[in-house]
């Protein structure tokens, strides 16, 4: 295993799905089985990524492998294309490939009979290609390009059933909302470029750690970091741009699993992870606040939604907010760890919901479900495992990562005095447990509420259940750590994911991130040291209280769900009536769509109308006026032409004709006349010259 080989592998991983996309797109109409080709190349990509991760972690665990070629050279500026393989990138590519492959397999059955079957797989290939590009790239320009590619492929996939108006609207909404975030990101990228004259991450970070800042001020470094974070707000559906994700559920369900649970939305978090080292304390604090709002608001919305996919969508936004908040408070390792674990169990939940929808013949309303446990045992089991994982119950991966994040917020509170993040963290953990079990109970437990649909429900075929089982399997703790209660003992967060050296100037960091004397072996009491001893100690101390509290709140949430929906000790409807205003806010999604419609959309259309009027009246008036003036001038000059110029010309012609008429007389045509004239004039000349 050499580094060159790994680079070759990663290039293959990147481009195989693209080949699959092109082939499936070009020959999709001629060969109905071309989707198999797409699946096969994706499988090869998957195998290669497994080898890549193994080789990277076994042989090059502490090194970052980069390879680049020059793309454009203008003057002294060179733009490179390149690949950077660090532990985070290879882990991410493995997650992307696993989920992409399973979603492909799931889709084979789920999408069967669709009129654009091959095209669907082509789009999946394009999406996988773009996502791998984001993960593998070593410069932010390429990342931005792939970022937009992900945007366009998600647009294609969300609007895959574009005959449905709601689907095409959702696709447009997703695309436009993403675009708003991307504008900010583009501005950030350009800020970096004008300051550092390069797009490559390493070179930018190097220069920052040497003290070179945009406009020589830490404030502008904060602004740049936040502008780049804008891209993450859009892609990761963070507050206030989270509105596109629930609507994006109009796409096929496997697409939701791939894009809106595990990969595309994770790209935003991945971006923040990638640029984490250049984020100042102020920027991180704002990021944490955005993450907190994104975690809290959708969690409250998810409590009352009735569409199985929408609950999951809001849950996704909430969990992504969790990760962003974790990054904001400096819990780098656990944020990325949560990204991985969440990707698996959320993909499992989405595919599980796909299985339910498939089995129920395209019924998505949980009010029409219930009792499906008996009809769909495997789907139920995997869905339950994933729900337990997302709720943060011990023995699952979700417990480990969520616990780490909560400990991080706890530590942040004890170090800086901002306890709000920890409070919201625990509150959201409870809400998550509650709405997930509400979903499980309403869907699978109890008596069937729609007898007709229930009778026709059936368990999904093997090829759909198999991915569920794999993903549910990945939601257990033993893949990540030997100790089911503490991820810090495991290999993922100690060996594989390491927080980067912070490169922002000392006085722009959080206090606890300032350089101090690190422990000799990089560990304290067997725990890895990140940033500073102070922080590590705080996290260590926060670990057990946080764990106990998180266990408590998760248990409380699950218990409440059972009390209300399973044992019916409390009537959900009466509860809703009692808390009517709160219920309405939650049920109507905090009126975000309405507010945006009333402000931004109405504002934009109003402005457009105003501009249209301005255009019609003023601009058109000017144009018309100038046209009239031109016409008048032309008429006048035409007249002038006709009368004066033509008159002059005609007069000249007449004059020459007249003169010609006179002189014509002299031209008799007789040679003798001419001779007489010659002699006559000769004589005259002679007289003249004689007198001289």
């Amino acid at each position, binding site marked *: 295993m050499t580094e060159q080989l790994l680079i070759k592998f990663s290039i293959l991983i990147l481009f195989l799905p693209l080949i699959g996309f092109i082939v499936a797109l070009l020959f999709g109409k001629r060969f109905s089985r071309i989707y198999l080709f797409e699946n096969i190349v994706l499988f090869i990509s998957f195998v290669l990524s497994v080898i890549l991760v193994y080789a990277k972690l076994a042989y090059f665990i502490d090194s970052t492998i980069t390879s680049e070629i020059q793309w454009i050279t203008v003057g002294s500026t060179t733009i490179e294309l390149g690949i950077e393989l660090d532990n985070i990138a290879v882990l991410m590519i493995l997650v992307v490939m696993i989920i992409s492959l399973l979603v492909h397999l799931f889709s084979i059955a789920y999408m069967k009979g669709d009129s654009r079957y091959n095209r669907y797989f082509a789009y999946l290939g394009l999406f996988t290609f773009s996502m791998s590009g984001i993960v593998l790239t070593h410069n932010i320009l390429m990342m931005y390009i792939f970022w937009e590619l992900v945007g366009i492929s998600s647009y294609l996939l969300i609007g895959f059933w574009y005959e449905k108006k709601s689907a095409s609207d959702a696709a447009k909404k997703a695309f436009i909302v993403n675009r708003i975030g991307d504008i900010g990101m583009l501005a950030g990228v350009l800020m970096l470029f004008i300051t550092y004259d390069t797009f490559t991450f390493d070179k930018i970070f190097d220069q920052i750690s040497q003290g070179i800042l945009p406009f020589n001020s830490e404030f502008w470094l904060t602004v740049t970091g936040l502008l780049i974070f804008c891209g993450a707000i859009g892609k990761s559906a963070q507050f206030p741009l989270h509105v596109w994700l629930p609507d994006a559920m109009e796409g096929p369900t496997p697409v939701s699993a791939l894009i809106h649970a595990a990969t595309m939305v994770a790209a935003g978090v991945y971006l923040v992870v990638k640029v984490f080292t250049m984020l100042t304390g102020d920027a991180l604090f704002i990021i944490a606040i955005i993450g907190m709002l994104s975690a809290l608001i959708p969690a409250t919305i998810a409590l009352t939604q009735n569409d199985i996919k929408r609950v999951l969508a809001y849950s996704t936004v909430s969990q992504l907010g969790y990760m962003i908040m974790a990054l904001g408070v400096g819990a780098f390792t656990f944020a990325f760890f949560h990204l991985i674990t969440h990707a698996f169990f959320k993909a499992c939940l989405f595919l599980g919901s796909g299985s339910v929808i498939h089995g129920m013949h395209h019924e998505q309303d949980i009010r029409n479900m219930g009792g499906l446990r008996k009809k769909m045992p495997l789907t139920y089991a995997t869905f339950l495992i994933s729900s337990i994982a997302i709720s943060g119950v011990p023995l699952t991966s979700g417990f480990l990562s969520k616990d780490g994040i909560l400990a991080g917020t706890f530590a942040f509170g004890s170090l800086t005095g901002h306890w709000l993040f920890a409070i919201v963290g625990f509150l959201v953990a409870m809400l998550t447990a509650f709405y997930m079990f509400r979903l499980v109970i309403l869907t699978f437990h109890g008596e069937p509420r729609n007898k007709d649909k229930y009778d026709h429900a059936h368990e999904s075929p093997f090829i759909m259940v198999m991915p569920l089982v794999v993903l549910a399997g990945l939601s257990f703790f033993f893949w990540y750590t030997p100790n089911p209660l503490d991820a810090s003992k495991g290999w993922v967060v100690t060996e594989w994911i390491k927080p980067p050296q912070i490169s922002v100037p000392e006085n722009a960091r959080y206090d606890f991130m300032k350089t101090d004397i690190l422990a000799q072996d990089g560990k304290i009491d067997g725990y890895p040291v990140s940033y500073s001893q102070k922080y590590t100690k705080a996290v260590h101390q926060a670990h057990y209280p946080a764990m106990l509290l998180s266990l408590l709140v998760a248990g409380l949430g699950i218990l409440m769900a059972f009390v209300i929906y399973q044992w019916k000790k409390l009537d959900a409807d009466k509860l809703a009536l009692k808390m009517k205003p709160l219920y309405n806010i939650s049920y109507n999604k905090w009126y975000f769509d309405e507010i945006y419609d009333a402000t931004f959309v109405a504002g934009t259309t109003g402005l457009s109308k105003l501009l249209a009027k301005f255009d019609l009246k003023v601009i058109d008036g000017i144009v018309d006026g100038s046209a009239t003036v031109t016409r008048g001038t032309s008429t006048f000059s035409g007249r002038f032409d006709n009368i004066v110029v033509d008159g002059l010309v005609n007069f000249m012609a007449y004059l020459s004709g007249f003169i010609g008429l006179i002189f014509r007389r002299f*031209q*008799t*045509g*007789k*040679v*003798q006349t001419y*001779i*007489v004239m010659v*002699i006559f004039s000769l004589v005259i000349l002679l007289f003249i010259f004689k007198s001289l």
Partner: protein
Amino acid sequence: MTEIGLNHFLIVSTVLFSLGIFGIVTRKNAVMVLMGIELVLNAANINFIAFAKYGGFGYQGQLVALFVIVLAAAEAAIALAIVLNIYKTFSTVDVDQIDTLKD
């Protein structure tokens, strides 16, 4: 009886020249016009000889006179050929009627 001098020659040549011009201008027949031209040439010849003799120019004047005779012969040949062609084209040698140049 005065001696014959330069002036006598010049008078003769002037008379001859005038007669030639008169012929050129008044005659209708192209051949007669041609003859007028010959007279003009010979008037010039007389001038050359006279000035050669009285002007002290040696033989140069006589030489030029010889050239003029040769020239006249050549001119006559070409002019007669032209007259012949004119006759062929217009069936007449009356110069008054040949006025196509006018148009």
